[in-house]
């Protein structure tokens, strides 16, 4: 891609600028090339690959135990859920199930991850749209969740806690008490989130009616997660294809029909409530027993193809394993939610102002390593 060689002004008088790969509002190394007429966006072209590590190729040489941990580096804000998807896919191939205790621990960890991810997103959205304070409010609760993760998994970002058959080790003795404390803290503080940002006039003007995505387009572009649900697409994998016993807990799938940035914002805010509710239902009901099913030292999947999808904080993550019977996968494909969500950005941004693009990117909640893999 010759960036410097091309004309800055096209024949039609359109102005071409590059946003990123080192731009504060892109949250990573995303590079957008934008065609402008004055301040109006005519076209957006994403240039990807600045953080491509070829995880799919790497996994072809790793064992079925090891490849899981590479996925923590994809969507690093949903590291637990990525690991869970891989573990579930291997379990599907082995035709085993995690123990009841492990399943509940996995759901708890996944929902804590979702909460911390949404909190980070909320802080960054405020930051992108000119409000610095939300970031500190969000990190107050996020820090408490990170400490729980640190205590049980030994890590704060790339936890590597899910293994085929269950979880790597049992939860910390303090786990239940600390989770309850954090849930209490979040419930007490969530109204502050709304007070500080949701009703703000500047924030509402910058998000309402901006970056509209219709239901049909959302399905056609494969947009999932809160972004898809804000356009009215029912796409929650936890409801559609329940895994790990998500069918046994009570929660609502949050839908909104507006399809603009504000709807995406509200869907995520309401999802935090649902995650808190799921955690509260399960925290006192962790079954006793083993935290791991016995598996062989060297896992070999039978010949065949296995597909497992889960709901990460950003949408539907699919893990597609093709096995030829050996100790490492023949081919692995990750259907990452951000990759599909990003493909709609051109459609959403056309006709908007350049400042609106920041709001669109903020509410898409992109994590770049997940796009590039």
């Amino acid at each position, binding site marked *: 891609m010759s960036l410097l060689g091309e004309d800055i002004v096209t024949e039609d008088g359109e102005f071409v600028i590059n946003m990123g790969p080192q731009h504060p509002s892109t949250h990573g190394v995303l590079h957008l090339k934008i065609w402008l007429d004055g301040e109006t966006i005519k076209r957006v072209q994403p240039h990807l*690959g600045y953080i491509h590590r070829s995880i799919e190729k790497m996994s072809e*040489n790793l064992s079925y135990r090891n490849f899981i941990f590479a996925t923590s580096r994809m969507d690093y804000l949903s590291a637990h859920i990525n690991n869970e998807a891989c573990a579930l896919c291997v379990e599907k191939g082995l035709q085993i199930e995690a123990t009841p205790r492990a399943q509940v621990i996995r759901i708890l960890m996944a929902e804590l991850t979702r909460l911390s991810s949404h909190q980070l997103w909320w802080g960054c959205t405020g930051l992108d749209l000119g409000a610095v304070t939300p970031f500190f409010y969000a990190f107050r609760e996020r820090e408490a969740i990170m400490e729980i993760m640190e205590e049980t998994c030994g890590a704060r970002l790339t936890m590597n806690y899910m293994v085929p058959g269950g979880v790597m080790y049992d939860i910390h003795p303090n786990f239940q008490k600390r989770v309850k404390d954090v849930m209490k803290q979040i419930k007490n503080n969530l109204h502050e989130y709304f007070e500080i940002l949701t009703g703000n006039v500047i924030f509402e003007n910058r998000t309402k009616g901006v970056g509209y995505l219709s239901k049909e387009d959302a399905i*056609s572009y494969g947009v999932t997660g809160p972004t898809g649900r804000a356009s009215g697409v029912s796409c929650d994998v936890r409801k559609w294809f329940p895994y790990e016993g998500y069918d046994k807990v009570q929660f609502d799938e949050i839908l909104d029909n507006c399809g603009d940035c504000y709807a995406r914002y509200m869907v995520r805010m309401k999802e935090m409530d649902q995650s808190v509710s799921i955690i509260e239902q399960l925290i006192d009901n962790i079954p006793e027993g083993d935290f791991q099913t016995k598996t062989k030292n060297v896992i070999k999947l039978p010949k065949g193809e*296995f*597909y497992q999808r889960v709901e990460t904080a950003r949408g539907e993550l699919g893990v597609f394993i093709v096995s030829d019977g050996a100790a490492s996968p023949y081919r692995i*494909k990750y259907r990452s939610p951000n990759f599909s969500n990003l493909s709609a950005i051109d459609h959403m941004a056309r006709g908007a102002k350049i400042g609106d693009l920041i709001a669109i990117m903020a509410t898409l909640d992109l994590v770049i390593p997940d796009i590039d893999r």
Partner: protein
Amino acid sequence: MTNEEIKLFISAHIPAATFDESGEFLNVIIASEELLPIMKELRSNRDLEFDYLFCLTCIDWKDHLMMVYHLLSKKHRHVIVIKAKITDVNDPQIETVCGIWKTAEFHEREVYDLFGVKFINHPDLRRIFLMDDWEGWPLRKNYVDENMIEI
């Protein structure tokens, strides 16, 4: 529709299609030339209405390439996997499905980038992750890179 009805429907359109139900989903294996008409039919038929292409990828089986399309219908809630076999590994070509599902545009660029499959009529077929002057198709089994370490 149940899997049996879908099988009958596809057999009526493509008599040569073979089916595989050993896995989780119904797999339909067709030749690459037959892809576009059946995909259009699967999307537009009112009883099928596969409106959501949730995964598009390719598998290199050394003697042939297999394009894999995972389709789901939001309305009828059924899932199908279409596999299109490309026999020419030296110059693999297949029709694009961009016109049916917009998400295919990015996913096909990814397959082009990593497998070298050329999508006929694709609006913007360029490498998506790697640099434009990169040589070879990394996810092919015969790809050699001197910097790669076997573990």
